[in-house]
């Protein structure tokens, strides 16, 4: 797997992205973002800054004005299928993403939709469950899992598609300290290029060398995490607390 990540393929390119919701609210105002292969980037900002909106543009669920290119593919209808196979989006609420009667079926959805063979689907499911540290869970019922377990299975459902880029929306929200620690460890181990939206600045300092600050639909800071975290005025101005 290591070789594949050396190709200049998996990048996120966002140029002058603007988006207004149907009710008129301007959520993004000319956002520029470039993520290189292998980078691990944190996206922070107050609620309503547009973080989730931006994330939804990365696999074409929302389409705004400006340019979005993922893994070299421009965001157009005919590319959506391949883009969604390359970018794994993990949403904030695992209940939105786990809708099958068994963990195995949920994790298998992505590979099955892609039309892979039974055997390959089975292999991917097992690999994904092992990656998130729950190798024996295939037969369990998602409804009965704990919050932390659900979050990890949600990640597994995306890993099974073997995406080049992982994008996560508030992965540690709502987790108890043990669940949070488990998830942080998981994120540290995954090799994919990563963009994570979060309020958890301590996790940001632990895992991400680069941080992008979004506020009111615009990028107000983009640089090495240490530098940004040390800038008390910047943090205060944008409702962030380290």
């Amino acid at each position, binding site marked *: 797997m290591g070789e594949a990540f050396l190709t200049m393929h998996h990048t996120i390119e966002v140029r002058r992205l603007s988006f207004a919701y149907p009710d008129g609210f301007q959520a993004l105002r000319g956002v520029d973002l470039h993520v290189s292969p292998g980078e691990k980037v944190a996206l922070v900002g107050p609620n309503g800054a547009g973080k989730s909106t931006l994330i939804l543009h990365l696999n074409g669920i929302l389409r705004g004005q400006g340019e979005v290119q993922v893994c070299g593919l421009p965001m157009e209808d005919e590319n959506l299928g391949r883009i969604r196979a390359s970018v794994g989006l993990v949403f904030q609420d695992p209940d939105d993403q786990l809708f*099958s*009667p*068994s963990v195995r079926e949920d994790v298998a959805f992505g590979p099955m939709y892609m039309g892979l063979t039974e055997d390959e689907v089975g292999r991917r499911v097992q690999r994904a469950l092992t990656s998130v540290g729950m190798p024996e869970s295939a037969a369990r*019922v*998602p409804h009965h899992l704990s919050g932390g377990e659900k979050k990890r299975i949600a990640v597994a459902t995306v890993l099974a598609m073997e995406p080049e880029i992982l994008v996560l929306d508030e992965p540690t929200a709502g987790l108890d300290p043990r669940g949070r620690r488990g998830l942080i460890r998981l994120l540290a181990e995954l090799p994919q290029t990563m963009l994570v939206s979060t309020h958890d600045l301590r996790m940001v300092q632990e895992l991400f060398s680069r941080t992008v600050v979004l506020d009111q639909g615009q990028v107000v800071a983009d640089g090495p995490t240490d530098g940004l975290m040390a800038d008390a005025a910047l943090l205060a101005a944008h409702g962030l607390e380290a």
Partner: protein
Amino acid sequence: MLASPLRMHIPDGFLTPAIAVIGWAIAVAIIVLALRQTRRQLDDRMVPMMGVLAAFIFAAQAINFPVAAGTSGHLIGASLAAIVMGPWAATLIMTAVLVVQGLLFQDGGLVVMGWNVVNMGVVAAFSGCLTYTLARRLAGESRVAILAASFAAGWISVVIASLAAAIELAASGTSPLTLAVAAMGSVHALIGIGEGIITAAAVGLLLVSRPELLKAGATAPGGRTATLVLVGLAVGLLVAAFSPLASPSPDGLEAVAESQNFLGLGQAAPYRILPDYTVPFIAHPALTTIAAVMLGTLVVFGGAVLVGRAATRRQASRG
């Protein structure tokens, strides 16, 4: 996505006011009964539960799946609600959905809402529940039996509800009976497959996640009254469907109408008994179509029971 994908919501103007009023009378009577039964069943949980589940039905109707060439299938949900909550609660839930759809999205008329409630609330919910209960009793306790019964309930509820709508439209002179029944019946025989599969899959998920919800009899009291209501409705609708066909000949009915000076008021009468047809072969196609639908219903029901029984027997012999 605001409008319901189900083409059974009859708009205003498609039913005569007299027929519409009859629909309201039936709907009101059943709603009053349903309120009483549900109150007994759920007590003070009733209002929040019915309300939120009505919101669920509305939201769930947006969950689609691709069928072919750009078309997609959806769920109506009356049978699912009936399987889990019982027919009376399901009637209330669907009524709430229909009132909001009619008032806010003009999906279904206001004056004709009585019949929409009867079709999609009462007929769909009761036929679905009855199918499910009967099929389960005959097919056994295995998981496959429950899923098969759910599929049958979904399919049958949709088809029968659509027939009811077709009969009401024909009785109002909006559509020739033959065509209405054939068109509604065949379209919904297809839509019903999707409903059946979705209902079965949803029940399947509930079975593993919260099996106590599906304990037979846990949430469905008033079974005898329910059966009475359903039988009464079925009889009423069949009478309505066959009465034009039961007359000795269309000419005979017209003659009667003329002698009573109906035709003079004819076009304007709100209660035209038999719309004129130029197609000569009226009676038989309608009869055969209805018979075909009844046959289809029996086939689906019988199939579900057989499949379920086989699975139960296999499970019993293994265990």
